[in-house]
């Protein structure tokens, strides 16, 4: 066997923290052969990113390689001088980061940024740098590269930015590419396009790739071999074709179980040995109630003025050949739908399709330009968003936010966050009564009561999500809007939270409007699905019907872009 291009042996990485030394990575072995694509899969905190940082020697100051050896094409990376490493990074091994926008300099033209890399590693001369940069853009399939050469990162979409980052990473023809969650935050269709591009480009040049991801489906679809990590240790290494058919380690099996996929129910996501949750017996509270729809949205429109469209100064300075800017931008373009009592409706679409704007308008945090939002027979769309906080309807519609960290005030403890709606809008008064209600809610959402006095940064992602859910259900609302409530969570935590939401829905008789880009998650939780694109509804129907027999091309495209683990 030829020696591996990258050989990580017995790697241990330590971080010096206030609470002493933390071993983020313990005795990890990873080999990458030439031309091979290896996936490192694990949940947050599993040490997968730290491993790759150690390989690039870009650990932050608190971290150090405590033990083990890293050999890259015969060279010892661990003890190489910094000057040599600087030369190696970018030319021999390069990296694609999670957030493409953060990886690009926002005030420099992308063409110049590519030139910088080329010049740094003596891959181009000042005379031919522009041609080479355009060539690099062309290789990552950026349309009209001569024009895009002059673009700034903010002028490009997320997927386009990631292509530029790939162009940067591949500009010097490295032997090893490390992709750290390269498609997190991108839409499924963009994810597919970006991953296909990475795989094609690396295969073409015989490059090796390390793909770091939390998504088993993605790893399965694009990797030759998969390394599964848990808590800083490698628990399983196998070819991707075998690991999904016969996972050996319990953790791999658990991860695979928790990944939402077609043909499984919500309960199947939980590990086999999990105790059945107390509220598994669905009590059809709402179905016996009246059959009038809870929420009726009709012809809802939200327009935003385009920047400078109405300004006379702007029109004066606009170049003659430039097209006049359309008057207004329609984020939501006349949509209508209903939600019945006790029903879960999924609102699906890619970023920018208007699903969040729609949910904000239904939530009455944003005023619609036109159209009606009728909740339980009352036109709540007519109440201005600023006044709605005082309306008695406020407590009947609540929301669980996308990012559990962002939606909790960092200076409030968990109990204060949950108590806020109770103190403002419920009949419960008095310190002890509010506290008792908060504890009851915490128990309902499975949050240990002793965690109530902690600040958000002292809680894990799953616990913060529970605080957010407890706050949303504190007033026993009738409609809860779930805005990608699990997007920031690991799959195993996601499985638990989704089950919790399902149980709560039955025990409290709520209706859900579930906003998501992840069709597999929507499939698990929703009775009906609405697919949106550019502000319009393209398809609507029962979940099974839309998922299994999509009518429109767009839905088909969305469904086919999801990478599936070969199960």
């Amino acid at each position, binding site marked *: 066997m030829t020696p591996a291009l990258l050989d990580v042996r017995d790697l241990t990485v330590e971080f010096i923290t206030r609470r002493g030394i933390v071993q983020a990575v313990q005795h990890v072995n990873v080999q990458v052969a030439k031309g091979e694509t290896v996936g490192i899969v694990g949940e947050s*905190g599993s040490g997968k990113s730290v491993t790759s940082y150690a390989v690039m020697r870009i650990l932050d100051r608190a971290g150090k390689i405590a033990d083990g050896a890293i050999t890259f094409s015969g060279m010892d990376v661990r003890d190489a001088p910094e000057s040599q490493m600087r030369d190696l990074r970018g030319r021999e091994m390069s990296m694609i980061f999670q957030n493409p926008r953060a990886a690009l300099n926002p005030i420099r033209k992308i063409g110049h940024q590519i030139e910088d890399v080329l010049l740094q590693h003596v891959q181009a001369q000042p005379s031919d740098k522009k041609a080479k940069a355009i060539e690099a853009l062309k290789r990552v399939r950026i349309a009209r590269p001569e024009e895009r050469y002059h673009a700034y990162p903010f002028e490009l979409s997320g997927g386009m930015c990631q292509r530029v980052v790939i162009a940067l990473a591949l500009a010097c023809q490295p032997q090893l590419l490390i992709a750290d969650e390269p498609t997190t935050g991108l839409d499924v269709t963009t994810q597919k396009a970006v991953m296909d591009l990475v795989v094609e480009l690396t295969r073409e040049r015989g490059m090796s790739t390390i793909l770091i991801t939390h998504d088993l489906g993605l790893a399965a679809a694009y990797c030759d071999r998969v390394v599964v990590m848990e808590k800083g240790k490698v628990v399983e290494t196998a070819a991707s074709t075998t690991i999904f058919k016969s996972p050996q380690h319990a953790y791999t099996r658990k991860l695979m179980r928790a990944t939402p996929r077609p043909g499984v129910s919500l309960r199947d996501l939980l590990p086999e040995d999990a105790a059945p949750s107390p509220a598994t017996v669905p009590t059809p509270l709402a179905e016996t109630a009246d059959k009038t729809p809870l929420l009726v949205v009709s012809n809802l429109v939200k327009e935003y003025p385009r920047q400078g469209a109405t300004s006379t100064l702007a029109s004066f300075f606009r170049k003659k050949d430039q097209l006049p800017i359309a008057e207004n931008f329609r984020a939501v373009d006349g949509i209508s739908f209903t939600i019945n009592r006790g029903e879960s409706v999924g609102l699906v679409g890619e970023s920018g399709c208007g699903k969040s704007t729609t949910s904000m308008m239904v939530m009455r945090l944003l005023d619609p330009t036109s159209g009606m939002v009728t909740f339980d027979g009352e036109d709540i769309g007519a109440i201005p968003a600023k006044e709605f906080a005082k309306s008695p309807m406020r407590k009947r519609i609540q929301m669980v936010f996308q990012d559990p960290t962002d939606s909790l*005030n960092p200076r409030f403890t968990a109990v204060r966050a949950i108590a806020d709606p109770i103190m403002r809008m419920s009949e419960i008064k008095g310190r002890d009564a509010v506290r008792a209600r908060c504890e009851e809610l915490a128990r309902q959402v499975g949050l*240990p009561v002793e965690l109530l006095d902690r600040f958000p940064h002292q809680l894990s992602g799953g616990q913060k999500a529970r605080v957010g859910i407890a706050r949303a259900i504190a007033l026993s609302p009738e409609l809860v809007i779930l805005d990608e409530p699990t997007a920031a969570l690991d799959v195993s935590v996601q499985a638990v939270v989704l089950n919790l939401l399902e149980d709560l829905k039955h025990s409290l008789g709520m209706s859900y409007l579930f906003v998501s880009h992840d069709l597999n998650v929507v499939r698990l939780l929703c009775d009906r699905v609405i697919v949106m694109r550019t502000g319009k509804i393209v398809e609507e129907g029962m979940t099974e019907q839309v998922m299994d027999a999509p009518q429109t091309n767009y839905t088909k495209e969305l469904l086919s872009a999801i990478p599936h683990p070969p199960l």
Partner: protein
Amino acid sequence: MNQRPALETAHIAATEMAAAAGAVPPDAIIPVSAPKQTSLLAHARYVIAENPVTGIAFGLFVLIAVCAIFGPWIAPYDPLASNTTSALQPPSAEHWFGTDQLGRDILSRVIVAARLDMAIAVSSVALVFALGGLSGTAAGFFGGWTDRIIGRIADTIMAFPLFVLAMGIVAALGNTVTNIVIATAIINFPLYARVARAEANVRRDAGFVQAARLSGNGEYRILLTQILPNIMPIMVVQMSLTMGYAILNAAGLSFIGLGVRPPTPEWGIMVAEGAGFIISGEWWIAFFPGAALMLAVFCFNLLGDGLRDIVDPQRRT
């Protein structure tokens, strides 16, 4: 791990343990078996141990505070009693900082002056924090006309040379300590308003603000209970920095003869009075109050950084 309740089912504990076990940045490490919350005192001790300069600044601050509160009792001599027989004496065992042209003990005067200087600085900073901090937060949070009006007021103030503006205000309003406080607050207004505006602006559509709206909070309540506590850390740093500036400003006004009048002990006047004697060799009359002024400004500037670390709950684990 044993502190975890049995309430939570095994699988949740397992997954969240995974999240907690080996996170990358120290901030991301969730204390699983840690005590509920470190007390403020223990945390302050940690911050000081981590950064000895903060410790020095705190020591200085305590010294200044003691002088300000107990000044008249700890001063060895009456700061106003003149004694012409012992005028212009250099520092000695009897008079540590020497005596001035009227034979008053400079050490006593420096100690007693701390109260007045601190009172001016603290009240002007409190005033500007209330005015500038609140209006800046409102400007950042509400935007629109509120923002425009407050922004232009700040710009107008900044268009003047600030010390000259302070001089003008005191000269116009009258030569009193209250007017020094008001003048110092007005010239610091743009600094507070701008910092508070920027901090409030980035948070106006944060998730927790939206969540507070859903909880039935009105806009003013959100401003006060959600936004303001979050911009406190940066405001505390700002206050500490402008505190030094306020002391300098008050002393500067006194130095040129505005505000506090002799024979009141005040660092600025004392420097002004002593300035004439430096040429003739009696350096101590101006030097010691000047040094006190410098140390006070120095102390508050250093304190800013330490305070930020202490009041920010994210730094506490």
